[in-house]
């Protein structure tokens, strides 16, 4: 999407245009959610962070200094709110089943993937290093984010995203190939 289109949507939404707001949500809801997940939040905390981020944008629509960069604004707001939430600690930590928490989450995700190939891919992705997982989780956002937005999401220089992306995707592909060799 072109910058002036995005700025136009922000301007229209600030003026009360509900359809423009819907389009902003359609365009960026995936990014906001991905940022919260990339920072390691579970689904409950990621939901709080996402909702808070959208409520913040709604109240700040008329004050954005660079409306064409609303995607980056959302990514930064979501990141800060996610860091805050991580500092506070997950509410689920208090549950007696805490030992099984993260694993159970991954299994649930895999169960939702009907396609076996995608399930293998998702499991392999989940086993990558934390920095690779965070970067790829944001890059796989639908629709695809710009590198500026990815940099804002992960507080990372834009110039470093390309090389890191290549390294992480190579690592992932190598492990998928290794897994394929041991399959019957």
């Amino acid at each position, binding site marked *: 999407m072109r910058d002036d289109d995005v700025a136009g949507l922000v301007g229209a*939404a600030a003026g009360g245009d*509900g359809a423009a*707001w*819907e389009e902003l*949500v359609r365009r960026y*809801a*995936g990014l*906001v*959610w*991905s940022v919260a*997940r990339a920072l390691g939040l579970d*689904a409950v905390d990621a*939901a*709080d*962070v*996402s*909702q*808070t981020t*959208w*409520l*913040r*944008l*709604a*109240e700040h*629509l008329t004050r954005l200094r660079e409306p064409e960069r609303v995607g980056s604004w959302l990514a930064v707001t979501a990141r*800060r*709110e996610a*860091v*805050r*939430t991580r*500092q*506070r600690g997950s*509410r689920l930590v*208090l549950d007696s089943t805490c030992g099984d928490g993260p694993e159970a989450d991954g299994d649930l*995700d*895999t169960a*939702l*993937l*009907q*396609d076996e*190939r*995608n*399930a293998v*891919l*998702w499991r392999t*992705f989940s086993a990558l290093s934390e920095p690779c997982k965070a970067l*790829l*989780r944001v*890059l*796989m*956002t*639908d629709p*695809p984010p710009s590198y500026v937005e990815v940099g804002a999401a992960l507080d990372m220089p834009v110039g470093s995203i390309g090389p890191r*992306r*290549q390294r992480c*995707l*190579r690592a*992932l*592909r190598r492990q*998928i190939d290794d897994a394929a060799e041991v399959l019957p």
Partner: protein
Amino acid sequence: MNEDEVLERLRAAARQADPPPAHVLAVARGAHARAGLDGELLELQFDTLMDAAATPTRAGPGRRVLRFGTPDCGAELELAGTRPVDVVGQVSPAAAGVVELTHAGGVARAEIDDLGRFAVDVVPPGPVTLAWTVPDGRRVRTSWVAI
């Protein structure tokens, strides 16, 4: 399979396995209609979760202090517990009145005493905002924050 194809397959897998939940999208869509209803916005200025070095002594373990607006016009909140959350706070300038705390489950109202103090117990976790009327008659509201 090259790297771009791997990323596209990941995108498809994420769409299936980890999309933004429907209730999140519903709040996101509804946020627009809630904006600008409650008057002047007071920004978050201080949060013990983010500004740990400057933590006031009152914020012990399990307590979080948030400050919105300015010392002349604003509010300080102290949160205890995680689910639900107990909120005590003080508005300035101090004046009796009513504070409205909007949360995931609705709106909770509480009396503000002569010293500006109030308490709202048993607030469900999630995004909250606090609104009240300052002595000169203006309606003010804190920026949304997740508790």
